[in-house]
């Protein structure tokens, strides 16, 4: 039973970075911008978070640094795609290549160093309840933060005027512009929000999930987060559900591996990627669902007429 508990706890920590990155990207895409640079922003967040925590000894400063680093890279992306209307697909790829390269260079001296771990919370009494206590009240701060961000995004996007403006900008930038809404400022803000979340997701990897720095430690999670947005058909709670499903698949792979059933570890490691493809196929095949929720201006350039 305690083994099952351990698995559930790891599933939660494996799902959190996916959720953080995906919920940020969801807001970006809702505003009509496709940022394929999530992987790069996560890598930079991971290395900067690790470095800052190592230098200061505080995982919380590491988290702040990770967020700032992700935001800084996304600002670069916003300048190119929103101000200079460059091709969003290509610019996102550039961001990923730059982020991965830069993180490798920055992190070279961090390889093999023990990191600073973001500890799990312990609320006396509540966290000690058997089974439910550690799951509900004994996680690290960012697990709750990820769910709180999801709730906030779900509320703001669909229950507030701000959300209406963001969705209007993403669905019809010309109309939003004609109504006097600032398409460009809204997109800047959304892209930077997404970058902050991606940086945070990266920081979670190097501070909580595996407190160390390994080059390419994001291992495609940024791309999986992008797929999760499609899988969740741009709806926050569906994305959260998807993130936890993916976390479960990843961890069950590891769990089977430790049992030693003779399945080559490479097959189990490739499981998340294969599941991503299957999930994309299943959800994209449902045209009605995707068409209803895909932001109509996703990936399209916008130049204000004056």
């Amino acid at each position, binding site marked *: 039973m305690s083994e099952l508990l351990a698995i559930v706890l790891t599933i939660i920590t494996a799902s959190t970075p996916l959720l953080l990155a995906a919920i940020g990207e969801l807001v970006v895409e809702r505003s009509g911008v496709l940022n394929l640079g999530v992987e790069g922003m996560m890598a930079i967040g991971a290395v900067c978070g690790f470095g800052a925590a190592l230098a200061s000894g505080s995982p919380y400063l590491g988290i702040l640094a990770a967020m700032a680093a992700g935001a800084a890279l996304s600002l670069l992306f916003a300048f190119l795609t929103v101000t200079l209307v*460059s091709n969003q697909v290509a610019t996102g*790829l550039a*961001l990923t290549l730059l982020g991965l390269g830069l993180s490798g*260079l920055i992190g070279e001296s961090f390889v093999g160093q023990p990191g600073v771990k973001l500890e799990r919370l312990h609320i006396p009494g509540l966290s000690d309840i058997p089974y439910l206590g550690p799951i509900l009240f004994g996680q690290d701060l960012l697990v709750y933060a990820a769910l709180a961000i999801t709730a906030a995004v779900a509320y703001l996007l669909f229950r507030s005027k701000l959300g209406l403006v963001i969705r209007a900008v993403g669905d019809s930038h010309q109309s939003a512009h004609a109504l006097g809404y600032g398409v460009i400022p809204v997109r800047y803000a959304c892209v930077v929000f997404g970058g902050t979340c991606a940086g945070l997701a990266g920081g979670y990897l190097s501070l909580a999930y595996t407190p160390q720095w390994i080059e390419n430690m994001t291992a495609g999670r940024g791309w999986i987060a992008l797929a999760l947005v499609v899988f969740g058909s741009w709806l926050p709670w569906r994305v959260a559900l998807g993130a936890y499903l993916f976390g479960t698949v990843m961890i069950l792979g590891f769990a089977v591996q430790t049992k030693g059933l003779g399945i080559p570890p490479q097959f189990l490691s490739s499981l998340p990627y294969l599941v*991503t493809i299957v999930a*994309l196929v299943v959800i*994209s095949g449902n045209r009605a669902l995707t068409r209803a929720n895909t932001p109509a201006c996703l990936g399209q350039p916008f130049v204000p007429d004056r």
Partner: protein
Amino acid sequence: MRLLLEKRSEHSQLMTVISPLIAVALTLVTGGFMFLAMGLNPFEALYVYFLEPLKFFWTFAAEDFWPLEQLAVKAAPLVLIGAGLAVAYSANVWNIGAEGQLTAGAILGAVVPVYFTDWQSPLTLIAMLALGAIGGMLWAAIPAFLKNRFGASEILTSLMLVYVSQLLLDWLVRGPWRDPAGHNFPQTVAFADWQVLPVFGESSLHLGVLLAVIAAAALAFMMARTLKGFEIKTLGVSPRAGRFAGFSRAGSVWFCLLLSGGLAGLAGIAEVMNTVGQLQPKISPGYGFTAIIVAFLGRLNPLGTLIAGLALAISYLGGEAAQVSLGVSDKSARVFQGILLFYVLACDTMILYRPKFVMDRPALAEKPT
């Protein structure tokens, strides 16, 4: 002060040519500052990085010719893959999994040395190259099928398959394909003499270099002079117009993915035949991803990728040289490549738009009507 973009009435021909040059210049300036931040003399570092490999052009010394050969050998896979990607991207088919197709090509091509180790015939090389291309095509056929049948984004599926192919390769070289006489190293048997591409004379230039030039020229011809090229460009610029012309979107997805995948597979098998000489867990320093930059720097023109491929090959060679003589990590090469793509994309804005700096928005009341 604000930046305004004014749409040009037509593409600026001048900017099409000079925007990549501006991008390269800006990359060098940024790189200089980066070296300065690392505590190096930026001029010396930039010289080692970008000019040392080209020393032959002003020394004409025989020993300086070798880096040029290395440059061509490094550029060959970049051009092969980049030319195919340039065609695909022109059609708005975003194959970003060339690294995976490269790996798949290398795996399938290596079937010959692994299973038919002693088969020695003039056909051996042809069979290996053909299998390599087929391997890449098969791997690229997966995203093409999923795109056309289910509408799944080829960007994400092709990329996911990169990880899958690398894990497959890792399993093969550690498991069923491991060289029994290889002291447990994760690698296959070393390819025999008749399983590597012929080289020209005494040089290290192998047949793959020639293949890259031929592929780039053939694709440039296709894009400029044939109906297929017109179809691809039309569907890329205006899918609606393409449909009215009777061009099939699904057909172009298949064509572009199979073409770029096949070339990536060819690059993969050529790379393991000559540079690596056997299958290992890591067979490419990210050529499939760097080729994306090659395609854009080459203006999505297959001939342009020839020059762009050489330019990016310099960054690989320079990275190695800088590691040896300056102690800078060769990871800096990837940073340069990323910065370069950023600048290329930023400068490309000037092809379609005329940037204007205005001091402030004029008040509406003062505007003459």
